């Protein structure tokens, strides 16, 4: 079965090809069957492999690719616990979101295109996590970027959406350059790009900390792009322009966690690169706090979730940076459950509200959307870190390691987590409780979504509720840690991320975190349920500090002012003054001189230099040809 692993990415690729070439000739139901079926089949295979793996690690080769000198790159796949876990998340949640999309996108005229792109995305995402070398990972890495571009700009008539898509692609490419250079640095340092060779070499010979730090930081730049960390996070909130299932699948559950996967996969490099490791932790922590503050004041249901995603990704990097590799990956998993759930619920709400996304115009949706309401509540509790829901366990593991590493990291982690609980419950109360604040028209139209949409919600809600039990914080009961152990063997020689036996300190930290979250939830309840407060409609009435946060600290405007505008200015002025008036002017000046000197000696001639040169050359050639024969 494991030898069939290459089929897993190929199945969605075939789905893509059939739908892309079949196009409008295929009926919608056939498109749905192919689109969902290919991913479901891939999930089935992944599950089969999961049960046969038994902690081993195997390489499956598909095709020769690039053989240049020492560089031997094949399309081959590494099947080990880490990649199989990601495969399960991608195909499992991917399937649920495909299913959901059959309902959500039903009325869209480009239904076939949508499924083609989604399948293509799943293909690239699987390549990313299954590749047995950095190049195949990079193929997936850039491929998902392309799909993200296509899907953010899916409704391409809207210029704003197109701009968001373009921005996502370009910002990601900044990160990709870092990844590419990091990869090349690995190649020239370790003479290989295959994971098995690189990692075993690093674990034996890791004295060159400088090179390892450089490699680590370059790779992390790549991760910052794809996983929306400071300073490259600005594309992700804009990416919400895409259809909501896309936000759930690509911009919450899978693609944006690629950076986490990459660093977890390269854990052995990072454990011997202390500077890079600390950078990961600090950037992750700052992002977690920073994005959470922005989330506090957003009024667009998807924007709140987007900033929360940025913040949660920061959490994952904090975990990786302090050596909690299992914890980081654990949070990827639980986050995939609850964030996909929250986005899909948001989609269901937007569907019911006829496209409205502003929570100030919602309220009281509890009655009309009972399933959406309940599942959303479960997701909200899970992300807020209340036991026994999944988010609690994964966050706790990260925070426990952060506490061991640096108590300040832990403190800021708690602060971010408090803000998360607050804005998530704010979102929940404003959306589902209180009076309805929309139009009469919308009110009549309110409805629960069809089964194709609610079934995925229910399944994800169950996972979000119980998914945490894979990682009970005790050395003997932590299933996920036991499972992932082989993937972190090399790294554990330097940093052991195993959970210790459950002790008093851990219990106290846990209780503290729960109390903090509960206090935030109480505050949100008090303001938005008890007092029925609604964020003010006119943002210019906000107090100054709040307005600053509401406008996302003007980071986009800042980037525009320091990067985009200067770049446009330089190219524009450069073109007008350097290119045309300087370089070309010199060239033309020389030409004029030649012409002028030509006109001086033009007595018997017509004065056309071009003609002379041509005639001369032609004459020489004719003479030579004559000689040849």
């Amino acid at each position, binding site marked *: 079965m494991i030898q069939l692993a290459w089929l897993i990415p190929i199945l969605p690729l075939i789905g893509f090809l059939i739908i892309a070439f079949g196009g409008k000739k295929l009926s919608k139901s056939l498109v749905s069957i192919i689109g969902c079926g290919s991913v479901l089949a891939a999930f089935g295979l992944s599950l089969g492999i999961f049960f046969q793996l038994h902690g081993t690690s195997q390489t499956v080769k598909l095709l020769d690719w690039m053989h*240049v*000198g020492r560089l031997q790159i094949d399309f081959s796949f590494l099947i080990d616990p880490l990649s199989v876990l990601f495969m399960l998340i991608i195909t499992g949640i991917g399937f649920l979101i495909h299913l959901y999309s059959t309902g959500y996108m039903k009325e869209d005229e480009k239904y076939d295109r949508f499924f083609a792109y989604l399948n293509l995305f799943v293909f690239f995402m699987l390549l990313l996590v299954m590749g047995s070398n950095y190049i195949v990972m990079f193929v997936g890495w850039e491929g998902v970027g392309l799909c993200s571009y296509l899907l953010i700009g899916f409704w391409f008539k*809207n210029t704003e959406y197109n701009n968001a898509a373009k921005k996502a692609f*370009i910002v990601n490419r900044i990160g990709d350059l870092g990844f*590419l250079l990091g990869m*090349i640095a690995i190649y020239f340092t370790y003479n290989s790009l295959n994971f098995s060779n690189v990692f075993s070499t690093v674990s034996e010979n890791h004295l060159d900390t400088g090179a390892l730090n450089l490699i680590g930081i370059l790779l992390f730049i790549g991760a910052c792009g794809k996983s929306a960390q400071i300073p490259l996070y600005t594309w992700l909130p804009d990416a919400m322009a895409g259809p909501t299932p896309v936000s759930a699948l690509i911009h919450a559950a899978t693609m944006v966690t690629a950076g986490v996967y990459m660093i977890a996969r390269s854990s052995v490099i990072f454990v011997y690169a202390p500077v890079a490791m600390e950078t990961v932790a600090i950037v992750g922590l700052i992002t977690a706090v920073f994005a959470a503050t922005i989330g506090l004041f957003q009024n667009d249901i998807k924007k709140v979730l987007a900033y929360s995603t940025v913040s949660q990704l920061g959490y994952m990097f904090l975990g990786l940076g302090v050596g909690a590799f299992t914890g980081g990956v654990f949070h990827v998993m639980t986050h995939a459950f609850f964030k996909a759930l929250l986005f899909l619920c948001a989609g269901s709400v937007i569907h019911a509200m006829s496209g409205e996304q502003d929570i100030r115009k919602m309220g009281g949706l509890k009655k009309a959307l009972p399933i959406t309401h309940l599942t959303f509540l479960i997701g909200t509790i899970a992300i807020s870190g209340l036991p026994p829901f999944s988010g609690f366990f994964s966050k706790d593991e990260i925070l426990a390691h952060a506490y061991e590493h640096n108590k300040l990291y832990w403190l800021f982690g708690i602060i971010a987590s408090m803000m998360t609980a607050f804005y998530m419950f704010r979102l929940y109360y404003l959306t589902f409780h209180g009076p309805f604040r929309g139009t009469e028209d919308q009110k009549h139209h309110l409805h629960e979504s069809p089964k194709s949409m609610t079934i995925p919600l229910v399944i994800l809600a169950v996972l979000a509720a119980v998914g945490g039990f894979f990682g009970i914080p005790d050395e003997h009961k932590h299933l996920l840690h036991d499972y992932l152990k082989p993937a972190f063997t090399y790294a554990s020689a330097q940093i052991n991320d195993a959970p210790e036996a459950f002790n008093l300190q851990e219990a106290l930290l846990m209780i503290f975190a729960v109390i903090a979250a509960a206090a935030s939830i109480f505050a949100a309840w008090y303001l938005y349920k008890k007092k029925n407060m609604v964020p003010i409609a006119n943002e210019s009435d906000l107090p100054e500090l709040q307005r600053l946060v509401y406008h996302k600290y003007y980071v986009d405007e800042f980037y525009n002012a320091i990067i985009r505008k200067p770049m446009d200015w330089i190219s524009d002025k450069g073109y007008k003054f350097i290119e045309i008036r300087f370089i070309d002017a010199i*060239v033309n000046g020389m*030409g004029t001189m030649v012409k002028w000197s030509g006109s001086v000696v033009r007595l018997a001639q017509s004065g056309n230099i071009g003609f002379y040169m041509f005639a001369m*050359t032609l004459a020489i050639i004719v003479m030579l040809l004559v000689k040849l024969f």
Partner: protein
Amino acid sequence: MVTASLIGLPLAFALLLLFTKGEGVKRIALIASVIEFALCIVAYVLLHKSQVAQVADARLSMNVPWIASLGVNFNVALDGISMVLVFLTCFLVPLIILSGFGKNHENPSLFYALLLFMQMALIGVFVAQDGFLFYVFWELALLPIYFICLMWGGENRGTITFKFFVYTIGGSLFMLAALIYLYLNTSLGETGIHTFDLQALINAGHGLSLTEQSFVFWGILLAFAVKMPIFPFHTWQPDTYHTAPTQGTMMLSGIMLKMGTYGLLRWLLPMTPAAFESWAPTVVVLSIISIVYASLMAIAQKDFKRLIAYSSIAHVGLIAAGIMAFQPGSGNTEGITGSIMQMFSHGINVVGLFLIADIIFSRMGTFEMSKLGGIRNIAPKFTSLFLIILMGSVALPLTNGFIGEFLLISGVFKYSAIAAGFAGLTIILGAVYMLRGFQTIMLGEIKSNTSSFTPLTASEGAVLVIIASAVIFFGVYPKPVLDLIQNDVQQLVSSLKVIHP
């Protein structure tokens, strides 16, 4: 014999076309180029067999005296590196001819005769093993394109073509001088006359002092630098690409500029080792300036054809950087291999992009991007093909552009990590200008003028599909190209003389 026929066949058909009249010439030209392509496949098979068997195939080379008194031979040979470029030429010419099936040129027999004549000269450049022969083909390639631009070009063609002609021929005169200098330094041997044989010229070059080598180096380089072009010798290029009829632009950008990059590899790299060591860093810097500068210029363009022209300068800059960043003795073949792969890919992609520009122009009457928009609404298939070729151009993995670019940046990285960082900016800036162009032209609401966009004709569609397929095929499976050149690159690299190990 086969190699010589590859040169002779297009020439024969060119002459035939001159005596043909009427609309049928397009078809004859297409048939001619397809026969040539078939012959090229034969050559490829022979070469492949000889590589596997590790014995040279006599059918692939030919060496007969031409001007015996001067030591000039008609010496042509096909190795893997030449084969890639010959294949590129023979693959693209039929597509370029086919892409013009919807057009009616004035005096079509002359137009297509010139096109085939140019193909002959280009192939000659890629297979010549004799310095004089190389120079003759080099100049012969210029003549037809000069006439094509002059007679079928767009506005202002007189001035622009004149500049192009003088600039490039001026550059190559320096090369001629350098080659003659080398020639005069070749050993006399038994016959008592000098020779233009490539290997003899290389040997002569190795015997020169650093100063002499430097003059030879810059003389030869100048011709190549103008032809590619690299900064600051590039200002003829955007105007010429813009004003030339699109089929001419395709010949120029798809194939002819590879004369320059190929020349760097075959003629400049081995010729003057001491000068290479001293001056290559300067050229690397110029090439990297080309990449960044031309990318910025591309961002400033409002005209799509000009945008592609500048993007071509950026791509060629990376090819040049990858070659010139080679360090003799290091045994690193990444940069050299990447440069060949990228010559091949760039040729295919840029022809695709210029065809796209032409398709739009022939319907909308403008290259001005701001006047276009929303074409995706009525032409979804065209949009998909455009996007695939665009992705090849921005080097997305699984397209042909990625393999070359990755290897080239690796080559530059080995030379200097900082330089690689600057060279790698092409990854970001390329996405900036290409996606801007794509978005402005294709996306958004449909406009009143673009609503009349008619579907692709069969010939346009066929060419775009073939190009888009090649973009993906060679991205997924570059093995045929990489295998073909592996030994020859290895041989080239190990033959280079190390001055200061």
